[in-house]
């Protein structure tokens, strides 16, 4: 990155401090995800039935659950799993989608049509239902949540990369690279992809929030992660049993954690988009 880019970024941040806050939030979340286990006040899986279902207090900031476990500690520790699932899923679809999409967008022709058909089939399913079905088919395990989330995201990345490459493939500088002796493949991988990547990273950031919600949703309905592992979706699912009797903290706090995480990544994505392309600002 050149100093001009940094200047531009600093300029944007000054005009849009929310992006800065979101970036700090995302960084904080990452730190919690890595070191959560060491900094939480209570053991996230040790039950203490004597203090079950206690409302939030000074000792238990977010109350305790039906087994007396500290909800706050569980929320912090859960960040690791939730973020890991979302990040790896989005990472897989990002890499695959970028390469496949870029090749399709540049070459057109038979490859493009075949991939297009495949994407059409995937897109013919409501995505959450597709993820559900895949987890059911592949086996009810965490890895498969990752794979399923990656696959349902794939069409977006393929289409995005394809479109971005397609509008650029006849630009002067791309043809110039060929006139300077580059082969088609190297034009795609060394010239077009690096130019498309920044926009795709923005997509990735926006997509990360969605992936978090998606993965939490799958574990909410009982797929993937199993109790007693702390995970936001499962915590909400367990809390759901007590909501009609007014134990709101079991749902509200993990829900809040989910919301904040998603919000951070979404705002960060929006901010990155502004930094990369001020014209897209709405």
């Amino acid at each position, binding site marked *: 990155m*050149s100093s*001009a880019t940094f200047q531009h970024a600093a*300029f944007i941040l000054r*005009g849009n401090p929310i992006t800065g806050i979101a970036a700090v939030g995302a960084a904080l979340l990452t730190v919690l995800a890595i070191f959560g286990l060491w900094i939480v006040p209570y053991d996230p899986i040790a039950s203490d039935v004597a203090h079950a279902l206690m409302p939030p207090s000074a000792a238990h900031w977010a109350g305790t659950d039906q087994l007396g476990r500290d909800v706050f500690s569980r929320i912090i520790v859960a960040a690791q799993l939730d973020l890991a699932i979302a990040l790896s899923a989005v990472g897989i679809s990002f890499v695959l989608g970028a390469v496949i999409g870029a090749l399709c967008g540049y070459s057109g022709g038979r490859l493009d049509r075949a991939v297009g058909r495949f994407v059409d089939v995937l897109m013919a399913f409501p995505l959450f239902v597709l993820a559900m079905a895949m987890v059911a088919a592949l086996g009810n395990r965490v890895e498969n949540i990752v794979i399923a989330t990656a696959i349902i995201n794939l069409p977006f990345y393929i289409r995005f990369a394809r479109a971005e490459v397609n509008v650029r493939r006849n*630009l*002067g*500088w791309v*043809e*110039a*690279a*060929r*006139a*300077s*002796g*580059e*082969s*088609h493949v190297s034009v795609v991988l060394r*010239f077009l992809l*690096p*130019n498309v990547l920044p926009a795709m990273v923005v997509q990735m950031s926006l997509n990360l929030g969605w992936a978090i919600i998606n993965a939490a949703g799958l574990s909410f309905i009982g797929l993937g992660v199993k109790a007693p592992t702390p995970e936001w979706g499962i915590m909400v699912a367990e809390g759901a049993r007590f909501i009609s009797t007014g134990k709101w903290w079991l749902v509200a706090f993990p829900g809040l954690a989910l919301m904040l995480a998603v919000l951070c990544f979404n705002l960060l994505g929006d901010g990155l988009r502004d930094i990369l392309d*001020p014209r897209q600002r709405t």
Partner: protein
Amino acid sequence: MTKPLLQIDNLHVTFSTRRGPVEAVRGVSLSLAPGETLGIVGESGSGKSVTGFAVTRLLDPAGKISAGRILFRDREITKMSNASLREMHGSAMAMIFQNPRGALNPIRAIGAQIADAILAHRKISAEAARGEALDLLRAVQIRDPEKRMSAYPHELSGGMCQRVMIAMAISSNPSLLIADEPTTGLDVTTQKVVMDLLANIAAERGMATILITHDLGLAARYCRRVVVMEQGKLVEQAEALTLFRAPNHPYTKRLVAASPTATSRVEDLVTGEENLLAAVPAAPLPTPVHGTPPLLDVKNLVKRFDDGTVALKSFSMVMAAGESVGLVGESGSGKSTTSRMICRLLDQSEGTINFNGESIGHLPARDFHRAPQRRDIQIVFQDPNESLNPRFTAFDCIAHPLMRLAGMRNGDALRQRVRECASRVGLPSDLLERFPHQLSGGQKARIGIARAIACRPRLLVLDEPTAALDVSVQAVVLQLLDRLRREDGLAFLFVSHDLNVVRMMCQRTIVLRNGAIVEEGESHALFDNPQTAYTRELVEAVPNIELTPVAAAG
């Protein structure tokens, strides 16, 4: 003297941008009599369009009239309420825009759009409005007007859309018509038809017209009086003929010299010290040695696309080393397709291409990057903004072909060579570390040329190399190209829609239309005495400064 219709006093327009306020118009004063035709001429950033939009109060929300008065029929426009503005728009003054297709509502039939404009100012029945819309379509000479009433903009050509736009603008008989680059992007023959129509309608109805344009020839042909703007200021105003024959202000002098006409020479485009060719004596062009194969020999080139459209029906040409050949044609003529195939960036469907006696047409475009002729045939692209990799510095751009095609490695030799190329195209070496977005259009064009000549090719294909540049920048770039050609004995295949440029730059010219050659021959002979009706039409459509303005007669 009659009372002016429009009087602008010391107008200032300021835009608020992310980098703070920018003054786009800085103290413009002018007046316009009823029925007068005025041209506002200037290059990009001169504030000519902003002035037009300020008069109609159609500025972007970011732009504000920060000082000055605009009096229209003695009413102060700058202080007008929204309601009176709405009343005035269309009925008192109307505007015609650049990009006619975008200016029309894409999902409303054109008849309905014209009727909307009529109904905005008069309480008549919808039926009557449709009737009048039909009359207006006839007035702007749209064929089959009954059928066209229900057509949508995407079903019409750009020229047709501009006529519809004119019909809307004149629908409530305004007394002032402002046309902002009304024919930019249209082919030259279409441009002539649209401009003639506009001039006739304005004369018939006694409308005053302001024509905002970058094209001096256009302003000269259609305006009685012309004002020249530079960087938000009005630098000179005079009768069109006086202004162009005897410009006073140094900027106007530069601009007039830089605008190519039927008789201009490359040497005269740039005045003063910046003239690149003054120092270089016009070296005699190499005469082909008898018996050697021509540099380029193209036979029966055909291009069909997958969807069945034929871009090029048949094309043959021969070109000697060091020769410059122009390829002219309007949009859709196949000139760009042809240049891409000769450059081996696109495969032909049929035909042979021989370069220096060796066949290169049989090499598929996808493998040509390995061919030894790759470094001999280079290309300069149309839009300098799109021809440089946004992630490459100027240095990287020029170094890239040297590393790939001349096998040079990163090091002092490469640096030396890149600097040498940069200096040959007049690019200061301290700009080499910059990225494209930090450079001006002219600088980017120079980098594009430096990249193309870096490996000392023998044939340079120039695909509308100056079409996106302002005329004064174009002048410098054309001189630069001409000098490089003389120094290196380069052959040029110069693709352009601008007849005056081709006439000046090329010894021979080929005229293409709808994928076929219409006429070819020695440039001056071809343009001075065209043999085919189409070439004659093309030549006559080009507005030249020397011509007497048509509007002056009316």
